[in-house]
């Protein structure tokens, strides 16, 4: 097999640049402000579309998530990297997914959205990114002390197909029960009539763009958490260069499209409570570091047959249910009534996992 261009330095920079440009364009075409792509927010919207929570402003079966998984699946098959595997502490990954989502929703965005918020001029994102780096730093301390989730096992091809097939199922549901003007429900699916869940680019464009991103992200191993982790852990800047390219190209595209509005106050789907922007993202960063990938990377891994990554994604979707049913998620007005308690519990759970899962691997 020839050299994988996307795994080179130029390749990862190209991938970051393409994601940055396309994310800004998706916002122009209808996705919410500074949310051209947000893996956590979009999984939360999917949880809403399925009725796992009933926050009426964030319910939409986001095609971007579906496209990411199917695009990665196609790339993995095309390049003979589809590898069905499972069994590396799935329940721990599920719980990490729950608290990763809760932390992300206290901040209002995953690492992808944090950089897109920055690229849109939302300076609260700087606080969030500092929190993200701090959470990842704690995760790195655990990694240096032998933390790991154990080995996965090869399994039947069917096991690797399950998650991509769930995504196909979601897409089919969306086609059977499309959005109806003025209706908050179509068949079994919920749709928002206002708010971020109402704002979306045309389905076909979202799907095509995300299929492409899923494809190149699988080839390049693009990961926002890994970008900071590898810098802190090894001093490596490979993934970081893709991450930075995303910021630069999203920023440039935003300026060109008139989507750059610098400031702290009145930013779209954001609040200015600095302490909880920081700590929410720190919790998310720690959970992503302990689980071995940012929410996007988990989708791409799930697409290439990694059932454990798929379990993490399901944890995030369930976490979105908890976040909105229990009043943990923030809103532009500030943190939710129980958001602070949830972050404290989340840190306790992540520290428990970090301290207890340290079996030395025999080489």
């Amino acid at each position, binding site marked *: 097999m020839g050299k994988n261009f996307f795994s080179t330095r130029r390749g990862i920079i190209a991938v970051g640049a393409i994601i940055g440009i396309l994310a800004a364009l998706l916002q122009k075409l209808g996705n919410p402000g500074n949310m051209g792509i947000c893996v956590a927010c979009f999984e939360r919207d999917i949880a809403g579309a399925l009725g796992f929570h009933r926050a009426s402003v964030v319910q939409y079966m986001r095609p971007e998530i579906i496209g990411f998984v199917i695009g990665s699946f196609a790339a993995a098959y095309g390049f003979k*990297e589809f590898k069905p*595997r499972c069994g590396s502490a799935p329940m721990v990954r599920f719980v990490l997914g729950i608290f990763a989502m809760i932390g992300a929703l206290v901040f209002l965005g995953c690492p992808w959205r944090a950089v897109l918020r920055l690229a849109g001029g939302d300076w609260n994102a700087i606080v969030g990114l500092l929190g993200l780096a701090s959470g990842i730093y704690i995760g790195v301390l655990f990694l240096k002390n032998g933390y790991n989730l154990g*080995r996965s096992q090869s399994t039947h091809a069917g096991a690797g197909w399950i998650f991509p097939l769930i995504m196909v199922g979601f897409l089919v549901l969306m086609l059977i029960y499309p959005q109806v003007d003025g209706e908050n429900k179509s068949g079994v699916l919920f749709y928002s009539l206002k708010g971020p869940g109402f704002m979306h680019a045309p389905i076909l464009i979202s799907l095509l763009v995300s299929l492409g991103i899923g494809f190149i992200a699988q080839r390049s191993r693009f990961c926002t958490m890994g970008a900071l982790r590898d810098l802190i852990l090894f001093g490596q800047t490979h993934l970081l260069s893709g991450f930075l390219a995303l910021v630069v190209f999203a920023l440039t595209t935003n300026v060109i499209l008139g989507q750059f509005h610098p400031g702290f106050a009145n930013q779209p789907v954001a609040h200015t409570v600095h302490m909880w922007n920081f700590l929410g993202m720190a919790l998310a960063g720690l959970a992503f570091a302990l689980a*071995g990938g940012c929410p996007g990377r988990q989708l791409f891994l799930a697409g290439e047959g990694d059932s454990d990554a798929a379990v993490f994604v399901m944890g995030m979707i369930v976490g979105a249910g908890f976040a909105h049913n229990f009043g943990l998620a923030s809103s532009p007005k500030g943190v939710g009534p129980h958001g602070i308690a949830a972050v404290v519990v989340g840190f306790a759970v992540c520290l428990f996992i970090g301290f207890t899962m340290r079996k030395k691997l025999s*080489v």
Partner: protein
Amino acid sequence: MSKIIDARGLSCPQPVLMTLDEIKSGTDNEIQVIVDNEASKENVTRAAKSKGCTIKEITNDGDESKINILKG
């Protein structure tokens, strides 16, 4: 005789951590890392080169790859 690191079934960053630990503190001049996915192969190779090591040979056998590293 080379030191063998079995990183099969492990995902990043473990294979890289194990390799760098061995480069730093191991006594053998040659290290063989066994991985079972492309991402780990790329990461281990990249990390070893960044530490001034030479990749002597990479042999692929089905899903598995054996990366032979010579310490720099």
